[in-house]
Structures are given as C-alpha cells and as structure tokens.
C-alpha cells in the first residue's frame, strides 16, 4: 500500500478482520489442546495457554485411542490413495487421449453430485451381510466412490496439459500405448501425480460420514473419535482438541505445501489455477 488513503484503510481493516475470523477459531482449538484441565473453562478465556502442558496429548494418544486413530486413518487414507491413483489415474490418461470418452467422463463425474449417504447406506447393508463392517477394507472401498472420480478428472486435466506428440513419437519409435504411457508420459506428469496423490489422501483422511457409518470399535479413524468425546456431559475439552489437532495437522501441511494445486483439485481440474 503506497499511501494510507481512506479506501486503503478500509481494505486493511477488512483483510485483518477476515484473517482473524478464519484463523482465530482454529487457534483457539489448538491452544485448548495445551491447556491443563483447570483452564478449560476459565473466565476470562485465556488467549495463551499458561501454564501449558502436554497432558492432553498424552491422554488423547493413550487413553482415548488417538494412537490407534492415527494408525487407522493412515491405513485407510494411504491404501485408498494408492488404489484411487492407480485405477483413476489410468482412466484419466485414457480419457485425455481418447476422443470418444466424453460421455464416460461425465458418467464418472455424475457421482460428484450424489450425496454420500446414498452409497453409505447401501454399503452399510452390504457390508453387514458380508461381515465386513468395522474393518479397514470396508472404508477403503467406500472411499473409492469419491476418490476414483476425483483422480480421473484431476489426472485427466494434468494429462491434457501434456502434448500428445510426446507419446506419438515414442510410439513411432516402437513403443506400445502402454509403453509410451509408462516410459514417456508418467515421468513428465510426476508433479501432477504427486499433487493428486496428496489430495486423494487428504479427502480420505478427512471424510466423516462414511467412516462414522462403517466403523465402530475395531477401527476408529480420527474424525470419528471427535463426536465420541464431544457432545455428552463432562467433555474433556483439552483432550478432544489434542485428538482433533492430530486430525488437522496432516491436511493443513498438505494445503500449505500444495496450495498451488488446490484450485485445480477443488474444482476437479475445471479451473487450472
């Protein structure tokens, strides 16, 4: 800002208020995780945790199942990421190179519009018949419903940006389409693949409804732990916040590193960003 005119002052004010609005609630949760029990309900509210302690993290990890939650969430989000990326990434490539694929692409996109409760309910009934409720595999499969279409469209948008001449010249040199894909296209599209992978991971990691529906006691992904300990009487505020912080940190790190790809990811490749 060159000089402090009235309109610049208003701008500054709106930006400041917005940043406080978006950051403060998160900050409040993070500091709560460091507050000892006596400060959970202090009046006036303490802006900075003082004294600060790590008790909540200890309790969150070892007595509230946070450690298992982290493990379960990693298993689910990690396996789902690998499967969605392999299956969906291939289709994204095919659709990018195959002209007749528009209808197929839209069939794959249509899933984006259906509420997950639809699939979830059917999965719940099906998995209960198969005895697969409360297992990692049930959630991993159910998460494919949204992550495969996501991988297809996002990878398609990345492959669209790679000139077709590249693999055509490889094919002239005697590569099969699969060979050209593996040897020529994949290495070039690595940044796009990584960006897609971390976002697939993030979506699966954060997903709430399906995990709540399909898991109970053997598998407890992090997001499902939160309502278990928040909502009744005698809420262990600090401990819930510590667990929530475990759930929040990986995706925040992902957004901080990959924000360049966020627009493309959130619009399934429609807006390049």
């Amino acid at each position, binding site marked *: 800002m060159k000089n402090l005119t009235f309109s610049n002052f208003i701008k500054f004010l709106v930006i400041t208020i917005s940043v406080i609005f978006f950051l403060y609630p998160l900050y409040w949760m993070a500091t709560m995780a460091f507050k000892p029990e006596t400060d959970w309900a202090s009046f006036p509210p303490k802006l900075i945790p003082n004294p600060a302690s790590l008790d909540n993290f200890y309790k969150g990890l070892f007595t509230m199942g946070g450690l298992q939650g982290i493990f379960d969430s990693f298993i689910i989000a990690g396996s789902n990421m690998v499967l969605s990326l392999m299956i969906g990434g291939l289709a994204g490539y*095919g659709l990018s190179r195959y002209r007749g694929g528009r209808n197929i692409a839209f069939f794959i996109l249509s899933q984006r519009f259906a509420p997950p409760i*639809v699939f979830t309910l059917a999965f719940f009934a099906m998995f209960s018949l198969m005895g697969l409720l409360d297992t990692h595999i049930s959630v991993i499969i159910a998460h494919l419903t949204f992550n495969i279409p996501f991988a297809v469209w996002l990878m398609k948008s990345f492959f669209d940006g790679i000139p077709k001449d590249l693999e055509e010249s490889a094919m002239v040199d005697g590569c099969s389409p699969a060979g050209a894909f593996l040897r020529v296209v994949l290495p070039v599209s690595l940044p796009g693949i990584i960006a897609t992978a971390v976002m697939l991971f993030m979506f699966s990691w954060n997903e709430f409804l399906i995990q709540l529906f399909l898991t109970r006691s053997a598998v407890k992904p992090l997001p499902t732990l939160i309502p278990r300990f928040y909502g009744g009487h005698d809420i262990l505020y600090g401990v819930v916040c510590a667990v929530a912080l475990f759930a929040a940190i990986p995706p925040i790190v992902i957004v901080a590193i990959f924000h360049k790809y966020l627009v493309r990811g959130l619009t399934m490749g429609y*807006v390049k960003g």
Partner: protein
Amino acid sequence: MRIGGQKSPYFIFILPSLIILSAIIVFPFVFNLYLSFQKWDIRFRGATPEFIGITNYLKAFSDTRFFNSLSKTLYMLSLAVPLEFFFGLLLALLFYEPFKGRRLLSLFILFPLALSDAVVGLVWGLVLVPTYGPVDYFMRILGLWDLLGFKKPISLVTTYPMEMIIMADIWQWTPFFYIVLLAGLASLPREIIEAAEIDGAARFNVVRYIMMPMLKQVIGVTLIIRITDIFKTFGLPYVMTKGGPGFASEVASLYIFNQALQFLNVTYAATLTIILIAAITIVINVFIRGYRLKF
C-alpha cells in the same frame, strides 16, 4: 459412445475405473432402489427383505420430520451459498492486487478448507461455548449482547442452531470461493481491466460488467459444487448439535442417518435417499439450464 468394437487402444485404460465404479456406485444406487420397496427388520438375525410396494414412499410423503429436514437443508442452501460466494468474491478482489504479506495471509485463509467436517464442527462448538467460549466473551466486553437486545448472554448454539451451523459452513467454505475466484481473476487479461479503470469506470462497474461476465463459467462451476455439497451436509450438525434442540437442525442427511442407525429402518432410509437424489437432480438441472452452464 461406442463401446463394443472400439478401436481405440485407450479404452483399456478406462475399463478398470468403469468396472469398479459400476460396482461401487451404480450397484449401491440400484440396491437402494430395491431396498426402498422392501420391508426388512435388520434387528433380527436371518430376517429377509419382504416386498411391500410403495408403502415406504407413501410414508415418506406424509413424514413431517422428513420435510422438516429438507426445509433445514434448503434454508442452509439459501443462506450459506450466497454468503460464501459474496465473502469469497470480496476477499478475492481484495487479494487480487498485490500487497505486503499477501501470500502468507492468503495461506491462513485456506486453512479451514483443509479440515475434516468433524474438526470444523468441534472448532465452532468450542468457540460458541456459553460463558467460557471466546465468542460469548468478546460479545460481553464489546457490549454486543446489549446492542442486539439480549438482556443476558444466551447459548447461541441452542438458540440459533441452524444459523450457527451455517456460520461454521461459511467459515469452512468461503475460502473455496475465495481461492477459485482469485485464480479466475488472475487468469483474466489485465489490460482489459486496466483499460476500463483508466477510462474512469467505477470499481463496482468493473467487477459487475467486466469481471463477472468473463468469469461466468467459473462462477457457475463453484456454485454448482457448493449447491450439491449443501445437500451432503452432515458432519457440522452431527458434531455441533446432533440435529437438536429437538429437530431444529436436523438436515436431510442427518435424518436419513438417524433412520438407518438409530431406528434401524434401513429400507425406509433407502427410500429417503432416493427422494433426496430426485430433489438434487431437479435442483441441479434447474440451475444448469437457468445459468446456461457449459462444461
């Protein structure tokens, strides 16, 4: 679409996705449709589905609690999406011009987007806690309670459950409009905007008559994504209010969840999902036609 006799070698790349998605998206949908015509008491082991025709649908159309949940969802749609769009656009315009610290502040605004619905619900539940929460406290010291006509501080979540859920949703999704619209703005040719500004066009007119028409398709896509997302709303009310007090914040997905897991009426819940899909399909088609959205 020619699938049989397809010459393109690329079809083989698409095939795995098609097979798997048919199994996990088409089949569940058909299964739900099948269930919606059945009666099936899953509390008894070995109980089997029994055909009951359209009884479930008749029940749904006289189910006031279902219509209540649809009205909550539509209420959320009518408030959350326009406000998120408006604030997102405002922020995008503010961050469009460079200033010191823009990158870092921009990143801070994106944090809510990274979070699970469960975490967002918890965060807003916490800041809205009566007496000990920061919102109550700041409203006290700024005298906002008096200003808004409350004799004494009240619990916002129990008095205005839907509005507080909408507030949390605005917190979580305004950054989405912000970041996408900012990318859209950045893609516009700068000369056109500068030319209009040099010609003395007012700021508002530049936005309204130059930027918005050029961004029409991008805006349409952001709106349709959020409109469909509103129908999926589940996590925020589930964590913040459990649909209460009473059914005051029981949105559609939450009601269906309760029918399935609390009352174990799986077939009736399946019926409601079919009706919900029909409702969403209508809303989307009306929007795409009315807006002339192109993909």
